[in-house]
């Protein structure tokens, strides 16, 4: 229906025109869309905040672990905890590198000096002795291998000093 002249005698506000109603509707639509987007952005921000908190916690944990590892690395001669290096594990590591013609007469582990090892070894000949040293040096957890004085007349009997660590 087109606009009719209105002769009402009472007070009245200005009659809204169709285009005004249209703009009002458009404004309401834009407002609703903005509200929806604001809510969506707020939810997204909440999720991002939660993710950030998780990452922050993870970073803090990694930093503390890194600090612990760095401290351990700095203090190479720090005491080695028996819990980290049980004697059976060290013995097994040493036994795994012994050639067939060599035997381990004695093994001393000094936990107070960071896992220092003292191996009394008897090898049938020099070749077995050399093979033992080579294997000890290639072993991933045995470091700082220092062979003692040796006599190569027949069998070789000597003391080898080394250090065992859990990290390769």
């Amino acid at each position: 229906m087109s606009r009719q002249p209105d002769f009402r005698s009472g007070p009245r506000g200005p009659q809204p025109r169709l285009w005004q109603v249209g703009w009002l509707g458009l404004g309401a639509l834009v407002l609703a869309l903005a509200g929806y987007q604001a809510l969506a952005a707020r939810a997204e921000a909440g999720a991002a905040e939660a993710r950030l908190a998780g990452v922050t916690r993870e970073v803090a944990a990694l930093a503390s672990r890194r600090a612990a590892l760095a401290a351990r690395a700095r203090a190479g001669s720090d005491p080695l905890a028996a819990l980290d290096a049980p004697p059976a594990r060290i013995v097994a590591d040493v036994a795994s590198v012994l050639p067939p013609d060599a035997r381990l007469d004695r093994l001393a582990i000094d936990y107070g000096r960071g896992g220092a090892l003292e191996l009394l070894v008897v090898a049938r000949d020099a070749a077995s002795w050399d093979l033992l040293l080579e294997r000890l040096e290639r072993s991933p957890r045995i470091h700082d291998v220092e062979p003692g004085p040796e006599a190569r007349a027949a069998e070789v009997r000597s003391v080898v000093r080394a250090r065992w660590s859990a990290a390769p």
Partner: protein
Amino acid sequence: MALLRTRTYLAIDAASVAAAEVSHGVKTARLRALVREPLASGALVPGPSGANLADPEAVQAALGRVLDRVGRARVTLVLPDGLARLLLVEAPAGVEPREFVRFRLGASLPWPADETSVDTLAAGAGRVIGAAIGRASVAEYEQAARAAGAQVEQVFLAPLMALSGLLRQGAGEAVHAVLGDVAVCLAFLRDGALAGLRSRRRDRSAGEAERLAEEMQRLSAAAGNGHAGVTLAFTGSDAARLRAEIGAPSPAPDGQPDGDEAGWLGGLLR
């Protein structure tokens, strides 16, 4: 705005009051209910000045009954033809049409100029229909409606509602007689615009149809129609009798009402 809602129109004329429920869409209107209550002769005499309600209690009672039947209180009040002065004008460039109508009609109004409500309706081809009505008359009808329990939201004029519908419909070349109970509005439409307009009180004595037909022919001639074959159309109060008297064809049944309310209600529904 009358968009996307159902409005109740409460129409008052000399012979009856009526309430119509109309559902308005964006470009459509549909009649949902129409109820009518007759008024005793002389209970209401529509006129431009002086009291119109000779028997206010009877009018209020009739209004109350139709409102009860439609069950709605918020209404658009439809005032009858005969209250307002109507004028077809083309305002000069730069002049506000409403002020031009006030200027043109001011000296001839039978009530004080500062007690006048003036408004306009676009009539096509750069012209407007100006309407001037006394505020006291409007207030008298509003008071009657309020006393019957209505909340008056708007006040329309029946002849302007009818003309609005004809203009919106883009009716072909024809002279329309929009009939109220006491007044008639003659409108010559051509090329979708209003080319001529007259409004006067009805003379219901014998021969009314012939007199109206002659006046409609004169209107079309005065408005520039050189041929005599213009279509004459009657709508509103007593239209069927007048059409029969002069042998004018009845309108094709198109779902529009053809009773006393056909003028203003047809204007809404077109």
